[in-house]
């Protein structure tokens, strides 16, 4: 699971609503998988990123050199874009958990795949 994916995930436990975002990330196994750098692609992703969630997740993974937010003229800032590329696309959580901040419900990440299924009792009716 990439951090860009984590940035989209939210808990859908009944009653939680928007307080289910972001999920608290813990990892027991993390890998770095190189991905071809595409500056245009990364630049276009930047406006879609929820920064606080990204920073929190990166912090839990103890990642260094994570930009705190978009810099002025970031579209042309290759250093910035390369860092964001790395953080969003190259860091893979292989084994870990995602926890709903409101309900405490834990979702597992196994072999890089988050399992977000809930029981019938837990879901919205």
């Amino acid at each position, binding site marked *: *699971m990439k951090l860009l994916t984590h940035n*989209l995930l939210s808990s*859908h436990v009944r009653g939680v609503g928007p307080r289910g975002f972001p999920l608290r990330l813990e990892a027991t196994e993390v890998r770095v998988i190189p991905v071809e750098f595409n500056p245009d692609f990364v630049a276009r992703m930047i406006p*879609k990123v929820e920064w606080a969630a990204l920073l929190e997740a990166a912090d839990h993974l103890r990642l260094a050199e994570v930009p705190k937010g978009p810099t002025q003229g970031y579209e042309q800032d290759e250093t910035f874009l390369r860092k964001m590329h790395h953080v969003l696309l190259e860091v893979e959580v292989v084994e870990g958990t995602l926890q709903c901040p409101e309900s405490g419900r834990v979702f597992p990440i196994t072999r890089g795949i988050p*399992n977000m299924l*809930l029981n019938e009792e837990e879901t919205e009716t």
Partner: protein
Amino acid sequence: MDHEAAQLEKQHVHDVYESTARYLSDLQGKAWPRVRQFLQDQEPGSLIADIGCGTGKYLKVNSQVHSLGCDYCGPLVEIARSRGCEVMVCDNLNLPFRDQGFDAIISIGVIHHFSTKQRRIRAIKEMARVLVPGGQLMIYVWAMEQKNRHFEKQDVLVPWNRALCSRLLSESSQPGRKKQCGHLERSHPYHPPCSVCSCSVCFKERRDSKRSHSVDDEPVRARTCCANISKEAGGGNGFYNTLGKSFRSWFCSRSLDESGLRKQIERVRPLKNTEGWATSTISIQPSRHSSVDRDPQEPFSTREPSSDEDVFVESSQKHLEWLRAPATGKHLRGDRQGETGRSGGGDCLGSTHTQEECAAAGALGEGKPSARRALRRVSTVDSTDSIPDDTIPVEGQQPDVWDSRAFMRYYHVFREGELCGLLRENVSELHILSSGNDHGNWCIIAEKKETCG
């Protein structure tokens, strides 16, 4: 009602896909052109979700976008993951995403697996929720109206032949076979009985179809029809008569009727929890069905098909051609040998067929090994649709054979206009941009309306 719906879907959608997922990994297909186009039309840097991604065949169509695949079925998701896709396991009815995260979403062959209208609406609303305003959603569902076939009802159970899959899988690993398995996973049913002789392979009516390239290219073959074959075989060489009963019924499905099939199904896989559900509203679909959207059960062909129907027609043509001249060893050895990598050996038609057919194959005389192979090929062609199961007569069929092979999948097939109506009346946050029919599917592209304030 919702609980029963969930139970039905568990038994006849989720459990089936879970059990059969491992057979799908080698039977990957390419993407449907129009879905491909939709994905390629998205802006570079877009965030795309494929809800119901299966083995992930659409996730790498456009390298300029970031695609996330989701599926309820863990084994399918594992396969997608092994191909390097970013995927997760989740439920379409409760998408674990924040609002307005995705620029585009595709839902290909998914909504038709929900067993109530409310659940179908909910699935669509969930996808609308996680779309950005102005973002587009593409939905494909099976159509009830098929060009040459007829669904009895809108709620159907479709059989799936597992043994066939494993056979396809092992055959596909033969040299020369492999590329033929790289076919698109299709989501539409195959030919229905034609008006002339109820023959499942009759492509007489397809001559006028724009899509039947192979038919257009080979007018001579196009005129071939099961009726002709029956005549010839019955009168002349008697070949047709030497075929086993179940094999004959593959050609002409007159012997098959829904109640016969239902008896079989009910004997073997009683719908325990869903009895009330099934008996009142669902019909067992006896007609040949290609497996679905995510089922890459393609008939084999020597060349890449432009559509399922073409492939099926072409394979049928070849077979019919062969039937017409069974003694022509040259023809038998024609392209069949190149296609099948297997030596004749003791291989017969696979466990779905009786010894009868093997004997029949043997009785062809000249070109025997090829004949056997060709027969097997034919059976696999239609068997991808679980036709042999459908056409095995009730009498004389061992229940346990049926039992171990039947995985019934639930579908709600859509009438023309139904999907559009569903969106218009229930999902006001979406605006329909276009709709149409593609290979037996009703498809829609809708846009999330801009929010005001």
